[in-house]
């Protein structure tokens, strides 16, 4: 026992003396991961800039300079897609985080059956988008779908859902006999239907992350708050929310990044509702859908890459902005 302790400490001092005693074998351990990541993750990011200057098909590329970018920035489809993407982010991220927080907070109240609730809420997250889109496309089917059946029971007019290119606010306005001006008509009902599907699938993830965040809050704080006579809402507002701020920020950042790249939900819903990519009048065409369509159906790899780069720049700028904003907010609080 003592002998090994002495040996260990002498080994330590020896390591301190001979400062350059490296484990060169480390590079062999790192090699597989570094090679794969370099070839398929880092190099492609740089190579993308080169591809974006190419015209023609993949096996017959030719250099065309910045034409792809100029074309993209001049294409109304690109700006339409960007607008749809912003609608999609604004319509899914706050709702998922808000609902996730409510569900997690309620689950955290030492409720019976907590494990079962948690398992159910998380279930959609493990199911593939294709399989769930098939059901949701059926739910929103204008003939025989549950959504219209529900409207019928409520005495509301039937809707075309995934086939509807009119903005939701226009539809709601029409129901109330209000004429909504063009720029306030909002995302198409088709895009809103996809958003409902996306919130349904993402909710469980946020619940789990919030539960982990709530577990980390010291229970004594709540006790102290109660002794001071705070009610449930005050505890939530002045203890839970501020201490969950890092969790909310984390979810905000990754959800915004994820939603800006939204592809699977929209693609599968378009396909399952037997529509062309982009939905009715292109109102579900997000930037990723636009990119994929150009690559897969139009064979324009260079053009599609320039769109991917523009999207990446937007995501990057937005993430930086969020970090700046959060740092400032953190200092202020």
């Amino acid at each position, binding site marked *: 026992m003592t002998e090994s302790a002495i040996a260990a400490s002498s*080994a330590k001092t020896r390591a301190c003396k001979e400062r350059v005693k490296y484990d060169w074998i480390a590079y062999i351990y790192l090699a597989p991961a570094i090679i794969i990541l370099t070839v398929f993750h880092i190099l492609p990011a740089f190579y993308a800039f080169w591809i974006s200057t190419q015209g023609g098909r993949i096996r017959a590329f030719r250099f065309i300079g910045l034409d792809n970018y100029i074309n993209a920035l001049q294409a109304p489809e690109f700006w339409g897609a960007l607008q749809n993407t912003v609608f999609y982010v604004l319509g899914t991220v706050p709702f998922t985080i808000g609902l996730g927080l409510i569900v997690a907070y309620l689950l955290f109240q030492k409720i019976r059956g907590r494990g079962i609730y948690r398992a159910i809420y998380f279930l959609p997250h493990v199911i593939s988008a294709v399989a769930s889109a098939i059901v949701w496309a*059926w739910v929103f089917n204008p003939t025989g779908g549950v959504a219209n059946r529900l409207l019928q029971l409520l005495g509301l007019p039937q809707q075309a859902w995934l086939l509807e290119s009119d903005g939701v606010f226009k539809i709601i306005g029409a129901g109330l006999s209000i004429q909504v001006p063009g720029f306030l008509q909002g995302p198409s009902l088709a895009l809103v239907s996809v958003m409902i599907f996306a919130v349904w699938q993402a909710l469980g993830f946020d619940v789990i992350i919030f539960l982990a965040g709530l577990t980390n809050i010291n229970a004594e704080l709540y006790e102290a708050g109660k002794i001071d006579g705070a009610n449930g809402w005050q505890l939530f507002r002045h203890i839970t929310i501020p201490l969950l701020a890092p969790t909310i920020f984390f979810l905000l950042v990754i959800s915004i990044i994820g939603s800006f790249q939204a592809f699977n939900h929209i693609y599968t819903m378009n396909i399952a509702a037997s529509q062309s990519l982009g939905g009715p009048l292109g109102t579900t065409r997000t930037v990723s859908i636009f990119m994929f369509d150009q690559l897969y159906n139009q064979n324009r790899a260079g053009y599609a890459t320039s769109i991917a780069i523009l999207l990446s720049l937007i995501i990057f700028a937005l993430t930086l902005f969020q970090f700046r904003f959060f740092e400032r907010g953190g200092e202020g609080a």
Partner: protein
Amino acid sequence: MMNRDRILHQLTNLGIHFVLLSGALFVIFPFVWMILGSLQTFAETTTATLLPASPQWSNYEASIRAMNGSKPCVFDPLNPLAILERERGCIIVRYFANTIFIGFGTVLGVLTTGTLAGYAFARLRFPGRETLFKILLATMMIPGELTLIPNYVFMVWFPTPESLLATTLGLPGAEAHNWIDTYYAMIIPWIATVFSIFLFRQFFRGIPNELFDAAVLDGASHSRFLVSIVLPLSRPVLITSGLLTFLGSWNALMWPMLVTNSPEMRPIQVGLRSLITEAGTQTQLLLAGATMTIIPIIILYLFFQRWFVEGISTVGIRG
């Protein structure tokens, strides 16, 4: 006074259960709907029927047949492997076999590269350790959208190892074959992730130094220490990382769709996506197909639910 408090408490509890239960019903109803719909007739699917008049189990057979190019499945006991072909067998079996093969291949790769690199970053001293790790973390910012097309171009360019060998040796009839429509394309690009390296590094840093010192005194090399002491302790991180990788691989859609051409190479999600084209508006067949593809993953989820949840929580806390 006490009594009133208790009643209030009970009422609050009831309210909470009401809200949670409504939410849970909203979450679970599409699954119930999927199974009920998969047993309905086509006419029933167009009239918002809840329960089928008589369960149409034949929908499942019809769905499998639609995937198979409208031919019934064949199993020839004399040539059992032919079941993996669309023309002479049953393509859905091939879809599942592909998905499982790709899933296990990817998991094995991710765990191997993650363990080795995580160990190096956590336990070994070498020049540039911190810089290299920071660079890796920074590359997590690269969005998948950006690398998709360049990687696709690589798949068109890269020769498969066996075709490269054959052409280099000048074997008769040797032809260069690229990675399109191969398992390489669906496994190799995904066998290392920064995220799992990060998970492994964090976990290995938590292993007490005493264990390591003792092993060194016994004359153990790093590889011996890693295999005989570290790995047996690492079950949680192996399971978490493995499950999340397998799930991602099982549900992947865009990439396998891009890099496969023949039905024989499709994983199940691409197969299901093709069924939408093949079965058209026959909703009940699509629902039967969807049900078949989610059953394995639901079973996996029920068994490993705790690990999934804990894995995701770690993501949140450490991310």
